[in-house]
């Protein structure tokens, strides 16, 4: 063959099974080699604990769903299994999106450089992309449902197995399609921003359902309420044609011996799976063909830069130029990050929804406690979310971290600037929370405000101290353009959880003592003492941070500069 040398011409076509075996071996070696370092071993230990949590969730859920399915089937209501399946589907689809830390982290697109057929690539993406805890737990739950149905009505078991297997496949396909499409949208800044807003609106609209229903019930007369069941019935009828509803309806039809209808509904289920398969196929084919998601190709021509257009950087009175420079860099990074802005808005949205609450006066009385402590609770929630910034401070720097080691600056200046930025963000967030509580209900009392701010100061300083340490010891590269194929360090995840539990627990005890004794100032005083101790620890850490950073530089550069 012209142009093809003898070596490649004589090569046998690579078999998919050989390629699968090679990839499995590769992943096994990557895992084994990761155990060579202390950090790698710590990661395994961390993931063991996380695994225990997932195992409890999987086994407990399986048992619960088996009992629920048995109950519904034995009471001749298999249609109601749709409700159970809705829960499974929402978990299957939403959990990986919300908690990408616990998803599959291997990037299979790297295999495209090899002579791999599209079918093999698709199967690799499906096989290795589906080994995440969510899929395993979802599958386990479906097994539980099948066992429940089969125990209650053994005659229904073949139908249950067929329908649930299809439902499982449909969920796997949909989850992979969602990830692939979200990644496509996140790859470009503009679509990333649009998606961020859509996601925010979606979350907000979900959260409004409860309060809106509450207000609807309270404000509308009997006539309007009489219309509601009709609307609900229409919704239930439509629900039968959704993927979970189809499974429930098919099981119901099969239990009544109406196998033709059951078959038709199963065919509809298959059609859904086919649509999701098509959507996934569209994305994977584009990847297989060598799609370039870089933004460079989509750039519009822009006006040339005028010399005067390079504006001077931020000036921070009282701080050195490097601190101001890093502070400004952090500001640009935060302001250009959809996920980070999302983190800032979420506490406000959640608190607003809780404050809106039902308008029923009787229920409002029960909520008095919540409203009183809405400000500290809102701050606790926002700290929980914002702490993600401080525990992996270098995650977004990538290869840029080398600059910090090559530049004539001390790491204490870099950490100080980062902490300053994060501290100001927190302060800004706290001000907004205070204003919101004041506007929606009533302003928190001065005593409570001071105690809460003292607690927030303590929490922020502890977060900075532990977070700075973890940022150096357990950094993890974070790329905005990759969705669902990167996860946080397990060690960091555990550290964040432990630190927040300790802080919130301590503050709760102090607040409980203050409320019990009727002296809120006591909480302020105790929390200020805690803050002073935390500040001392923070200063000690800052003094030692250069030595720690120098000692950790090789590991940090290796982790943050890695391309895979």
């Amino acid at each position, binding site marked *: 063959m012209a142009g093809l*040398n*003898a*070596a490649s011409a004589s090569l046998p076509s690579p078999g998919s099974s050989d390629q699968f075996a090679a990839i499995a071996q590769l992943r096994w070696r990557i895992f084994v080699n990761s155990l060579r370092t202390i950090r790698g071993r710590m990661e395994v230990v961390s993931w063991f604990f996380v695994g225990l949590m997932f195992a409890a969730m999987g086994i407990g859920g399986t048992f619960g769903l088996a009992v629920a399915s048995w109950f519904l089937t034995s009471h001749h209501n298999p249609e109601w299994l749709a409700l159970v399946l809705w829960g499974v589907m929402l978990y299957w689809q939403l959990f990986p999106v919300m908690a990408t830390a616990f998803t599959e982290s291997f990037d299979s697109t790297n295999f495209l450089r090899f002579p791999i057929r599209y079918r093999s690539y698709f199967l690799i993406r499906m096989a290795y992309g589906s080994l995440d805890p969510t899929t395993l737990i979802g599958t386990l739950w479906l097994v539980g449902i099948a066992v429940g149905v089969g125990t209650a009505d053994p005659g229904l078991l073949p139908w249950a197995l067929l329908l649930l297997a299809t439902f499982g496949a449909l969920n796997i396909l949909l989850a992979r399609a969602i990830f692939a499409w979200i990644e496509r949208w996140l790859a470009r*800044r503009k679509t990333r921003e649009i998606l961020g807003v859509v996601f925010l609106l979606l979350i907000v609209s979900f959260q409004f359902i409860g309060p809106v229903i509450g207000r609807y019930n309270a404000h509308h007369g009997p006539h309007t309420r009489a219309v509601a069941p009709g609307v609900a019935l229409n919704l239930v009828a439509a629900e039968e044609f959704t993927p979970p509803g189809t499974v429930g309806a098919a099981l119901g039809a099969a239990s009544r011996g109406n196998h033709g209808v059951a078959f038709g509904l199963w065919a509809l289920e298959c059609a859904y799976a086919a649509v999701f398969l098509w959507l996934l196929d569209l994305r994977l084919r584009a990847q297989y063909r060598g799609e370039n998601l*870089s*933004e*460079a190709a989509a*750039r519009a*021509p*822009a*006006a*040339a*830069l005028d*010399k*005067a*257009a*390079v*504006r*001077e*950087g931020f*000036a921070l009175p009282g701080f050195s*130029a*490097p601190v*101001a*420079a*890093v502070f*400004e*860099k952090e500001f*640009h*990074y935060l302001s*250009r*990050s959809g996920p980070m802005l999302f983190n800032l808005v979420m506490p406000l949205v959640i608190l607003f929804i809780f404050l809106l609450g039902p308008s029923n006066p009787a229920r409002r009385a029960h909520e008095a406690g919540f409203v009183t402590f809405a400000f500290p609770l809102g701050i606790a929630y926002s700290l929980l979310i914002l702490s993600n910034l401080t525990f992996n401070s270098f995650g*977004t*720097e*990538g*290869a*840029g*971290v*080398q*600059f910090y*080691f*090559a*530049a*004539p*600056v*001390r790491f204490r200046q870099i950490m100080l600037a980062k902490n300053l930025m994060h501290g100001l963000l927190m302060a800004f967030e706290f001000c907004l929370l205070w204003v919101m509580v004041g506007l929606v209900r009533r302003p928190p009392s001065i005593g409570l405000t001071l105690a809460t701010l003292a607690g927030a100061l303590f929490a922020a300083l502890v977060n900075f101290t532990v977070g700075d340490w973890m940022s150096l010891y357990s950094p993890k590269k974070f790329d*905005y*353009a990759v969705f669902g194929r990167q996860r946080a360090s397990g060690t960091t995840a555990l550290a964040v959880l432990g630190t927040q539990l300790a802080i919130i627990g301590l503050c709760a005890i102090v607040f409980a003592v203050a409320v019990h004794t009727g002296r809120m100032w006591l909480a302020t005083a105790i929390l200020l003492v805690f803050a002073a101790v935390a500040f001392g620890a923070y200063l000690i850490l800052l003094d030692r941070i250069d030595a720690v950073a*120098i000692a950790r*530089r*090789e590991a940090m*550069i290796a982790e943050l*500069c890695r391309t895979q």
Partner: protein
Amino acid sequence: MDAPAISTEHLSRRFGDLVAVDDVNLRVAAGQFFGFLGPNGAGKSTTIKMLTGLLAPSSGRMEILGLDFEKNAVEVKRQIGVVPEGMALFGRLTGAEYLNFVGRMYGLGRDTSAKRSAELLEFMQLVDQPKALIADYSHGMQKKLAMAAAVIHGPKILFLDEPFEGVDAVASNTLKSMLHGMIARGATIFLTSHVLEIVERLCSHVGIIYRGRLVAQGSLEELRAGVQAQAQRSDEAAAPAEKLTLEEIFLRIVGGSRATDQELSWLG
């Protein structure tokens, strides 16, 4: 006699059992354009990382501009500019923001930093996309930006790890012109490259590292003379000294001819 710009004594670096850099004694005089060569895995990048503070040596000493690196790390870093292997860019900043940031990290005033940033962007022809993020730059544009960042504070020594890799002819010409200008003003440049023709054209002095050991060091003329003398001692045929290219010198020193002895018949 002036202190050399760069000197190392018994510099070594081990990674477990592997000795990546072994007892290297390097001397680069001020004002030299020094090319640091070696086959893949010879220890070039490891050496440059140690000389710029990105990696700690296992043993030995390093002096930059007469200052002990370990004792004066910050002062040394102030005097040098670096383009490391991964370029050390911050992808979520624009080119102008990044240069401004780097300038201020090196202690330049806000106005000076902004002015030099604008000049460098113009010099490097990076002014067409003022709002583009660095992550969206092409590889060549990133390389030029990394180079601009390395010189914004006017370093006395510039360390460049593969500066011309992936750079087109136009950009390469721009970079060379800047480097020549720096040499003319008395700066020292320490460069690693696999492209021997570029090194031969740019560098006045060369060091060759092989399997972690510095096996040759000197001006190109000295290396040519050394290779020819060795060839005469072993009765090998060699071209006249003045006609020996750097590639021939390099291959003779690192034994590159061995590879041609083997034949991969299956390659067709």
